[in-house]
């Protein structure tokens, strides 16, 4: 069965993950459990039998709530809300990191939690990333669900040994005896003149480690949903937040919801080109899309969200329709998410492509401090517009 499935390149939707199947509310995607290879394909309900959207920005049509219900929230607070709900629901969930307790966290993601749950469950640690990550792993192996906060994802390079050799591997090397339900999270990406060491894209470095899952949030809605899903997962999950997105505001549901870790988010349906992006670049893409739409183009925008593994089901369905792919990322050209995604697209959807999958990335340089230089290393909306037009006019 597996061999036959491979020959037909049958795609199956998001599989597994213990977070799925529980309370959820994500009407823009039909959610399914693991289906055997060769099983039925499932379509997104919001796109079936609907005319294409004319708006560049994800408006009320794809928003999960009407204007009157739900509550407005900033992204950091949505993360906090998700974390708080999970801590209230499950007494084994605890947080550790620098300044997460009484200080409430450097980005306020843990604000108020130490007061509510006590300082054993919201633990301030001395400065040693390798140690508290290792500690989080040890606690996770012995029955707790730990959330480890890196004050900046870049600092987690100090914990690389624990993350790869232990979090990633111990479930496997122990023969499945010990599981590591740890969530490692924190802000990363290029900020506003934070300097090279504080502007890193760790998803690039960790994506190769077997045993890890990686997701990136980009809106308050998906931030909360992914935080909850990551905590409920029995696998070690790295949740990438972006340092410049914490104050993004959105209206999210009052009801409880959990998103699927392995799912991509269709932000704007279209037919001309598939644009794959994640984190802060999603917003740059949407900004560029406004101009593109005015000029008569119809881009399909997908926030891939799941960086490891890729949601090739959603991505593939899109490519089969548009036959053109542009990846917009913040990673560097070499060895980033874009590099891996291009390889996966070529491997799986070669027959559906009209041209090579394109990628806009940062250059292979440490992020400089001077504002003009820094802006030049991050992909800007203007570049996205130019690239899309070139691709749709057959110039490349």
């Amino acid at each position, binding site marked *: 069965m*597996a*061999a036959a*499935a*491979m020959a037909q390149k049958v795609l*199956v939707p998001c*599989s*597994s*993950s*213990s977070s799925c199947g529980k309370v959820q509310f994500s009407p823009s995607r039909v959610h399914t459990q*693991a289906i055997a*290879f060769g099983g039925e394909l499932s379509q997104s309900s919001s796109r079936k039998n609907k005319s294409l959207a004319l708006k560049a920005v994800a408006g009320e049509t794809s928003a999960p709530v009407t204007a009157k219900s739900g509550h407005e929230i900033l992204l950091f607070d949505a993360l906090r809300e998700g974390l708080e709900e999970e801590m209230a629901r499950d007494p084994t969930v*605890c947080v550790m990191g620098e300044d997460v307790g009484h200080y409430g966290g450097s980005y306020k993601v843990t604000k108020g939690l130490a007061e509510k749950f006590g300082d*054993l*469950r919201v*633990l301030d*640690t*001395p400065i*040693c990333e*390798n*140690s*508290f*990550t*290792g*500690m*989080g*792993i*040890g*606690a*996770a*192996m*012995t*029955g*707790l669900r*730990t959330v480890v906060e890196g004050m900046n994802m870049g600092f987690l390079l100090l914990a690389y*040994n*624990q993350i790869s*050799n*232990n979090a990633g*591997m*111990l*479930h*496997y*090397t*122990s*023969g*499945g*005896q*010990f*599981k590591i339900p740890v969530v490692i999270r924190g802000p990363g990406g290029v900020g506003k003149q934070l300097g090279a060491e504080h502007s890193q894209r760790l998803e690039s470095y960790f994506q190769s480690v*077997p*045993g890890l*899952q990686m997701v990136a949030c980009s809106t308050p809605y998906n931030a909360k949903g992914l935080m909850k899903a990551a905590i409920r*997962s*029995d*696998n070690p999950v790295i949740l990438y937040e972006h340092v410049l997105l914490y104050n993004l505001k959105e209206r999210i549901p009052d009801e409880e919801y959990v998103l699927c870790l*392995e799912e991509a988010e269709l932000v704007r349906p279209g037919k001309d080109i598939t644009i794959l992006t994640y984190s802060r670049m999603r917003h740059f893409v949407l900004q560029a899309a406004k101009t593109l739409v005015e000029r008569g183009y119809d881009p399909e925008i997908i926030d891939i969200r799941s960086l490891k*593994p890729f949601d*090739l089901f959603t991505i593939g369905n899109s490519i089969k329709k548009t036959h053109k792919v542009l990846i917009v990322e913040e990673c560097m050209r070499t060895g980033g998410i874009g590099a891996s995604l291009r390889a996966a697209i070529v491997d799986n959807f070669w027959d559906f492509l009209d041209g090579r999958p394109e990628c806009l990335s940062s250059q292979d340089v440490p992020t400089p401090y001077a504002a003009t230089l820094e802006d030049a290393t991050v992909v800007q909306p203007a570049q996205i517009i130019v690239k899309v037009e070139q691709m749709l006019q057959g110039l490349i």
Partner: protein
Amino acid sequence: MLDFPGAKAAFTSRMEFISPNAAEAVPCFRILDDLGRALDGSDIPEVDSSLAVKMYHTMVRLQTFDSIFYEAQRQGRISFYLTNIGEEALNVASAAALTKDDVVFPQYREHGVLMWRGFTLDEFANQCFSNEAGHGKGRQMPIHYGSEKLNYFTISSPIATQLPHAVGAAYGLKMDRKNACAVTYFGDGGSSEGDFHAACNFAAVLEAPVLFVCRNNGYAISTPACEQYKGDGIVVRGRGYGMTSIRVDGNDALAVFKAVSAARKLAVEQSKPVLIEAMTYRVGHHSTSDDSTKYRSGEEIAHWRSVRDPVLRFRRWLESNAWWSVEDEKELRGAARKEVISAMNQAEKKNKPPLSELFTDVYDTLPRNLLEQEATLRDTVSKNPPSLAPH
């Protein structure tokens, strides 16, 4: 008193540097002399004949397993092995002082702790032969044992990474108010790793019930202890972290038993960490990949193997209590050898794990990319001669 946030200290007008080492090294606690006789004024811990004999049995079984499996590697039957020779008393006596609820985070030279807890010779052998019956499903090198049932966490090769894990586990035990502690082992070399510092500091600050047991066996592969640190060993660092510590003769089973029992009590009752530096000697090579005669003399090794053998020393104490005899020894050595060889032969005959186990347990369930990769691999194998993996 000066009241800086960093320290509450009296002031002094005399500028006086603290010397790098105290006038005398921290004394080493022992109960038995080198010939297994109780020293004057010693306070023998409560070890009755059945406990003592059980400890001795385990030490002998460990020694026998080590020598036979070391030879098996030399004969090419397994790819790698490392022994506990010289540290049998430390392994077994420390394990005997713990309860089965205490969680153990080993480095890799603590097979005796696992043996004490009930891991069978078959289970040891299966892991070394990486066959389908092993708990690790053939994924780790020999001697990288792990048993969830016995609260012995799967060994991971990188040095000292288990130390922060132990602190994390201890923190969990504290939260649950369990009558148990975490115990972690490491060597003199491991104490140089950053994780040692981090774990000690964290354990002390967070008041985690964890025992840090340093097997100071004098060598880290070829690096002698005098090139590993310049201070008075590892015990003195305890004070640096605000942690209770003790130095003990690791080759004296009774002293180890007593010290670990007391440390455990302190850790569990007061929820505090304790550092135990057990002085011992690594009689064997670092592993089958090492030939230690390159960096130490044959005479030195022979001396510690014979005159300073901790198993013989304990046996002498047993004999002095009339709990052990020459006949018992002959019988035990013979039986142990037979059992080990039998376990080895059984394990060698078993199949290696099936191909499906290459892909399971990377995650809780198989993701799409691994299903694809497995399909590709099976396809490759089916098209090629059977010299590739069995099924």
